[in-house]
């Protein structure tokens, strides 16, 4: 452990130049200019564009509050769910948001373990995205209980009722998985944030900012003795977050796979859900980063190479998801089970077929444009594609959940599902909440991991024995 564990293998600049077409950090930066550049948006007064966006997003969050209050008042009868389709928008959106969150952990943890230097510029914002996405996701199952004030019944606490949670149920596994995931993501994010809060405290001009950032940085003083433990602790947190993120979506898929319903009861669900989560999560990072890097002037730090790498991940996971769809249909046919085959026939040709084909278009066709470097590096193309992919992944969850439920073994209980305005309001509302939190985050916290970028800048400078800009 004496040799630093965070130091990636250093290659000579000539080798790097052949392997990598674009620089990780652009422009010749020193520590001081990086501090100025990366914290500039935090220091400056709030621009009007930001305020307008915040107002827009906050009104979405207001809609969420309204719909939550309405749901609590009326009960979940306010939603479109019926006795046949008992799970609908609530679980669709829950899975969608959780999936989006996974890219943040993937970037911050798995890429750290694989010593991928390009993670450094995007990990902080991606982790924040994870946290806010998990927060939005958690609202749905809580509201779906109908009586969220009894939510504490989920947890094993000493009660005179002597009724403990049923730990063999995947829904209980979900409670533990999601709460562990949310909390671990928060701690990982905050541990990385402490040095940058210290930097923000020391770079701030206003007294209020100094005091507030001083409190939240816990009095960090960049001590070498602290950094030693920080590095080890950060790496272990990355190490445990990696299996955690895989376990979370695996457990989410168990909610379906452990049941005996045709279309759900398949062993391919865990890997296929995890790939889908990474796929949609990276798409969301692209959706957010393309405007944010421009808005905050971070083009030198979040370069086209970062975006291109993420698009490569999107291409790979898109292909895995496509393989998942093909396999589901193949196994349904090969199983010879009439009910199973009917569910897949119903997906392709039943009343919800348009959503199925939209899903196929967005998730199987769209990512293939990334075979071309031009598409991978064009901001306009990737932004539109990332939006389409998230539409596609939402359709996937709708298709999996609603089409499996609405026509199962017993034709007498078949029913149609259509969402109500409350369903839509909750969905749009969580987007508003997510947007509000993300906007507050980029304004009041460093959106890029400042300390890690400085470290990378020094490493790259060392690699070429010149400025970072020379490593091309």
């Amino acid at each position, binding site marked *: *452990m*004496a040799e*630093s564990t965070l130091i990636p293998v250093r290659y000579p600049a000539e080798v790097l130049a052949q392997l990598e077409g674009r620089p990780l950090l652009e422009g010749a930066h*020193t*520590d*001081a200019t990086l501090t100025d550049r990366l914290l500039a948006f935090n220091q400056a007064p709030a621009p009007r564009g930001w305020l307008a966006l915040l107002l827009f997003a906050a009104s979405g969050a207001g809609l969420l509050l309204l719909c939550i209050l309405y749901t609590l008042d009326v009960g979940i009868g306010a939603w479109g769910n019926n006795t046949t389709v008992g799970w609908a928008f609530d679980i669709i959106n829950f899975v969608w948001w959780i999936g989006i969150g996974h890219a943040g952990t993937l970037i911050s943890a798995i890429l750290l373990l694989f010593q991928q230097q390009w993670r450094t510029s995007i990990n902080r914002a991606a982790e924040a995205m994870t946290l806010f996405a998990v927060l939005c996701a958690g609202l749905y199952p809580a509201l779906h209980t109908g009586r969220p004030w009894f939510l504490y019944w989920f947890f*094993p606490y000493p009660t005179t009722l*002597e*009724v*403990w*949670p*049923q*730990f*063999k149920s995947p829904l*209980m*596994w979900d409670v*533990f*998985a999601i*709460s*562990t995931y949310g*909390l*671990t993501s928060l*701690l990982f994010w*905050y*541990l990385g944030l*402490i*040095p940058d809060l*210290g*930097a923000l*405290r*020391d770079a701030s001009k206003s007294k209020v900012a100094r005091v507030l950032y*001083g409190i939240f940085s*816990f*009095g*960090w*003083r*960049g*001590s*070498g*003795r*602290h*950094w*030693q*433990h*920080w590095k*080890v*602790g950060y790496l*272990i*947190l990355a190490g*445990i*977050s990696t*299996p*955690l993120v895989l*376990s979370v979506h695996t*457990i989410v898929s*168990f909610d379906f796979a452990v049941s005996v319903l045709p279309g759900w009861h398949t062993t391919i669900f865990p890997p296929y859900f995890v790939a889908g989560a990474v796929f949609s999560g990276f798409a969301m990072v692209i959706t957010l980063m393309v405007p944010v890097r421009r808005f905050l002037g971070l083009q030198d730090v979040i370069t086209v190479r970062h975006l291109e790498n993420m698009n490569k991940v999107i291409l790979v996971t898109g292909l895995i998801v496509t393989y998942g769809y093909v396999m589901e249909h193949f196994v349904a046919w090969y199983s010879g089970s009439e009910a199973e085959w009917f569910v897949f026939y119903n997906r392709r040709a039943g009343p919800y077929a348009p959503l199925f084909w939209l899903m196929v278009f967005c998730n199987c066709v769209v990512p293939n444009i990334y075979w071309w470097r031009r598409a991978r590096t064009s901001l306009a193309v990737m932004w539109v594609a990332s939006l389409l992919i998230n539409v596609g992944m939402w359709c996937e969850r709708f298709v999996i959940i609603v089409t499996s439920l609405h026509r199962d073994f017993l034709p007498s209980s078949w029913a149609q599902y259509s969402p109500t305005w409350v369903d839509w309001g909750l969905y749009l509302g969580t987007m508003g909440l997510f947007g509000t939190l993300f906007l507050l985050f980029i304004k009041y916290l460093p959106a890029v991991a400042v*300390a890690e970028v*400085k*470290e990378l800048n*020094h490493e790259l400078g060392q690699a070429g024995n010149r400025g970072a800009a020379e490593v091309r």
Partner: protein
Amino acid sequence: MATRGRSVVLGEFAGPSPLLDAVRALRQEGFTGLDTHSPFPLHGAEEALGLRPSLVPWMAFAAGLTGAALGYFMQWGFNASLYPLNVGNRLAHSPPANIPITFETTILFTALSLFFGLVLGFFRLPRPHHPVFEVEAFRSATTHGYWVSVELPREDAPAVRRARALLEGLGGSNVSVVEEGP
């Protein structure tokens, strides 16, 4: 009786390698209460400061084991022993069904121990009033400055003078002394 309290001698250096060279030189001179202050973790700081390997992994390992044991026995206790639950006549105690929650509690305990163990135990934070903050120029330590600090007993005035002279001789700028204590 000697007064209690300590003096902290601070000096700023131009970059990571001059800083680490200065730390090595100070250690050779016999100074022990040394520390570096830098905006990011410096490669080779552990070796220059002569730090022992971090005990953080052991703490995390112990916490992980505790989490695993508590998670497993919680499920066994609540569903098989204290309040046996018959679900479709399956075994009350079924190890495979207990794996997911055991895994999650392992991670949860490890993560909690890492964060709180590091901040409260290893860093001894929150502490917003450390003597180094008395020097206004020390602000740069979290943004672009590379500082060394030497902690000495306050009554040892000759050592303080020697540290100060040494830091100035090694090319340190903003060399200053902060005194703490009654």
